């Protein structure tokens, strides 16, 4: 299975979609295909029904959080200022990330090929977090997309039953995001030495309640 071939197949059959191959640096060689979210659903149905081989089995669906990451690299350039050539150091800032990503691992059952790694990205991490749900194409995405919604906060449009899966219903945050901080009223099991104990003591001290750990000691 060649990713280039599949890409050109999709491009020929799904007009207007923009695809991009993302290379993977690890020895696994599982490169992935980035699909624009407008055509996500059409590309998915084409992959299931029209492509050859047909990717009828969607095994794994998951999210990845890529917070904004600014890297600055210094570059020396030669500039001619007033007729004098001098070396000027320029700081080039590149910002990467600032989106949530959903990854689908597809396999073809009959041709026994795969994985075809499909990715979609949201525009940012705050409010533009909508992506098309692929559950209408592969039912196996149903619970897994719910999980991604729950833990990452990606909203899947077109999902039949988008509720939290693992956290309770009135839980607010999305725990798998990289910037998640757990609340300090969390019921920790205090251990003898770590900061969990200190946090818990601080929490109870602020509340004026007796520290649970002092009682047990």
């Amino acid at each position: 299975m060649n990713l280039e071939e599949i890409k050109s197949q999709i491009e020929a059959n799904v007009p207007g979609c923009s695809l991009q191959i993302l290379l993977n640096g690890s020895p696994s060689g599982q490169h992935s295909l980035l699909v624009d979210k407008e055509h996500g659903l059409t590309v998915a149905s084409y992959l299931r029904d029209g492509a050859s081989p047909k990717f009828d089995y969607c095994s794994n669906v998951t999210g990845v959080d890529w917070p904004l990451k600014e890297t600055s690299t210094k570059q020396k350039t030669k500039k001619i200022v007033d007729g004098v050539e001098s070396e000027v150091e320029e700081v080039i800032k590149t910002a990467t990330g600032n989106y949530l990503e959903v990854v689908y691992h597809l396999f073809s059952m009959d041709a026994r090929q795969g994985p075809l790694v499909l990715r979609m990205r949201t525009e940012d991490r705050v409010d533009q977090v909508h992506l098309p749900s692929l559950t209408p194409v592969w039912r196996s995405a149903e619970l897994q997309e719910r999980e991604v919604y729950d833990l990452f906060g990606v909203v899947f449009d077109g999902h039949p039953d988008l509720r939290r899966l693992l956290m309770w219903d009135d839980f607010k945050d999305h725990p798998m995001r990289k910037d998640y901080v757990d609340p300090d009223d969390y019921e920790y099991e205090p251990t003898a030495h770590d900061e969990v104990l200190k946090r818990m003591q601080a929490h109870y001290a602020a509340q004026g309640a007796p520290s649970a750990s002092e009682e047990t000691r």
Partner: protein
Amino acid sequence: MSVLTEASVDTVSMPADDHLQGDLLEISMGPVHPSTHGVFRMNLLLDGERVVKLKPVFGYLHRNHEKIAEHETYLGSMPYTDRLDYICSITNNWAYALAVEKLAGIPVPERAEYLRVITGELTRLQNHAGLIGFLLQDMGASGTPLMYAFREREKILDLFEALTGARMMCNYMRFGGCRCDLPAGWMEQAKKVVDEFPRFLDEFESLLRTNEILMERTQGTGIVTREQAINAGLSGPMARASGVNYDLRKVDKYGIYDRFSFRVPLGEHGDVYDRFMMRLLEMRESLEILKQAMRDIPSGPHKDPNTKIRNFRPKAGEAYGRIEAPKGELGFYLISDGGPNPYRYRVRPPSLINLTLLEQMCIGHNVSDIVIILGSIDIVLGEVDR
């Protein structure tokens, strides 16, 4: 109804909606219920005994294993994988080790591959033995079959303990091999267990396989068709009971599975009975693999000598590695950013995804059938909720 004559029905004034029809009853089954195999809850809408609607509720055992793993070194997550599907810790280790090996390109020596196959197939045996015991227990065959199954399972757990030091939390695989080699006398003991296992299977089959009550209850219950199974991503014995010929040991041929000759049993109807039979038949095939592996195992190192355990940093990239765990396709998806901890660590839990069609399987059946349908899916909540 029979006491009411036609005349009396006429004289009793009936309100507009039919009382005998009754209201729909909403009940919550679980989270602490003996038949849900852990803390699993289903919200049921019942019409009498019949299920009209079913919504599973997850998360009672959620501990965010994936987040924990992002704060652990690659090796540090290995013992946590034991606790996913705590019945089959060795295959969990294997799937994780396989994913990391893909991510970092680590070779596995030959003997280690054989050790993995042997321990992995023993895991499948004890998982399936336990499962059919539980399933029959769910059907009301109280105690007896479960005890027989556990008696046999115990012998395999003893083997695990002799090899890894623990019965269930084995923590046995390492990247590029296994943690330790076989202790003296282990192979003989294992051969004995493998030789005696078919006798247990025969007994077990004669105990209940042709039992009329069991057949009556399980045949035609909880049907999943082939197309549904594929689309819903069912895997493992669940999918094969519906006739999906997809066994990763044959498809991916991970490790050294291409060296063994074994068959993949397939079901036809996709009902509870087929799933029950699937486990029985798979155990026989596992025994075949075990015999071949125990015969052919070469000597040599049990792990790749060049892979460090500490300060292990695969270079940036990602990998998805999957194996045929006893419950289905167990996959690990890892993204490395070059650091000592994985950037993203994802478990593809077969137990959870096999539950996708639970509602559809149960609708129209009695409450007591939900119990056996759930039992036949083979879930472990440690893995469902992670």
